[in-house]
């Protein structure tokens, strides 16, 4: 479980997050949603300490990550897997080396065990026989899946995904969403996904936190998002024509 308490953040005097609190439970896909530039990625970066929050705490299973000592922060970080928007694969390493990287650095596992684990993770994300390819030789969707394999290779307790299906075609996006959901259910990890994709919201949103202009405006799940009664959230949810048609039909 991850708990955020009153997170505020500003850049050069401009406040972008205003006292955001919330609880992200284990075994659930927790979504942080909102329009572009609303502070979702900043919140995610505060949660993994890539950015220090001005005010507030982030607790990982009651461990104060924000104000803990360096050792605690390192320990917690080694339980984190993260999928970045562009995959963030290391250009100079092959797919296999990318996925094996956390094991090389963080464990003393023998080479053959590491290779087995890498092959298992690549198989799990539906990528076989591309071990020796370089990141520049694979598609955007494959990069995301390699990113997921790398994030899960070290059996993380917490999985963070920053816009996992941005720039992908709808079919691949659904595949990535399903994969994140399956991994969350299978390994009972705490997953936090930042997205503005409504398909993801409806498909995997076990718990949703809606942010508007740096403030939390709504919290709930995908079953209740359509009847939130919050104008800003309605504008976001029913922004596209298809969603408006769904709403009109159900009315």
């Amino acid at each position, binding site marked *: 479980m991850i708990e955020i308490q009153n997170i505020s953040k500003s850049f050069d005097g401009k406040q972008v997050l205003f006292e955001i609190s919330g609880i992200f439970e284990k075994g659930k896909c927790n979504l942080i949603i909102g329009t572009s530039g609303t502070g979702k990625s900043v919140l995610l970066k505060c949660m993994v300490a*890539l950015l220090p929050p001005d005010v507030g705490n982030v607790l990982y299973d009651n461990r104060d990550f924000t104000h803990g000592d360096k050792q605690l922060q390192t320990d917690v*970080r080694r339980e*984190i897997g993260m999928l970045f928007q562009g995959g*963030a694969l290391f*250009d100079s390493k092959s797919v296999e080396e990318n996925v094996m990287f956390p094991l090389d650095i*963080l464990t003393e596992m023998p080479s053959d065990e590491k290779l087995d684990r890498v092959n298992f993770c690549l198989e799990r994300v539906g990528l076989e026989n591309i071990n020796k390819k370089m990141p520049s030789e694979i598609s955007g969707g494959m990069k995301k899946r390699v990113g997921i394999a790398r994030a899960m290779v070290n059996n993380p307790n917490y999985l963070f995904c920053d816009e996992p299906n941005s720039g992908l075609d709808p079919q691949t996006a659904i595949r990535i969403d399903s994969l994140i959901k399956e991994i969350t259910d299978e390994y009972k990890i705490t997953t936090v996904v930042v997205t503005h994709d409504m398909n993801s919201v409806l498909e995997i949103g076990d718990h949703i936190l809606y942010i508007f202009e740096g403030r939390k405006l709504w919290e709930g799940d995908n079953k209740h998002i359509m009847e939130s009664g919050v104008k800003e959230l309605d504008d976001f949810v029913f922004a596209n024509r298809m969603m408006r048609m769904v709403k009109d039909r159900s009315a």
Partner: protein
Amino acid sequence: MRSLGKYLIFIYNLFVRRETFRTYVKLSFDEAIKVGYDSLFIVLIVSVFLGAVTTIQTAYNLISPLIPDPVISLVVRDMTILELSPTIIAIVYAGKVGSNIAGELGTMRITEQIDALEVMGINAISYLVLPKIIASVLMFPLLVILSGFCAIYSGFLTSLVTGVISGEDYLTGIQLDFNEFGVVFAMIKALVYGYLVATISAYKGFYTSGGALEVGQSSTNAVTSSCIAILVADYSLAYMLAPFLTPS
């Protein structure tokens, strides 16, 4: 002052939360190939021409019945060892290796590869930059030794081809009044320049923000700042160490 403070914190962070010794050995070896072996061609080309041009120009500037011919190669030798090989090659090295380091780290920054390392609990500064510094400090002195040898040998070949000085006089001159401290001086310069180019370029690249345009700017800044640092260090070292070159 703010940049200097940030640079010093950057240097401090190289040595905290380090990875295993074995990790650094492998990474430093890979970097040594990149900064050393891959720079051989440009260093050799520049050194050969430095030696050749210095020999011809010195010869034409010292045409006098009062100056014996071996003095020409003595001047070539001292200029090469004390200034041309360490300093000019350092400027070339900053252009090649410095821009490469800044570009590589800048690209890693904007594509979130550095963030990926940090999220894994790895000290990205130490993991990415320390091997580059170790490689640079070890390899640049070797490049300087090679450059000095090539420049002096190239001067010898030039003297044979052009006849501005006889081969015998050239060989006599390069052995005349040789002060071994000159080589020590060159090595001290090489160590300092190798360190400056690697740290400044890495610093500029590591703190890149924005996109492709900013990566290009970081590379340019890395080369500019490294060159300025090299020239300032050259002056400071000359001021401090030149007295030791004077025969007692």
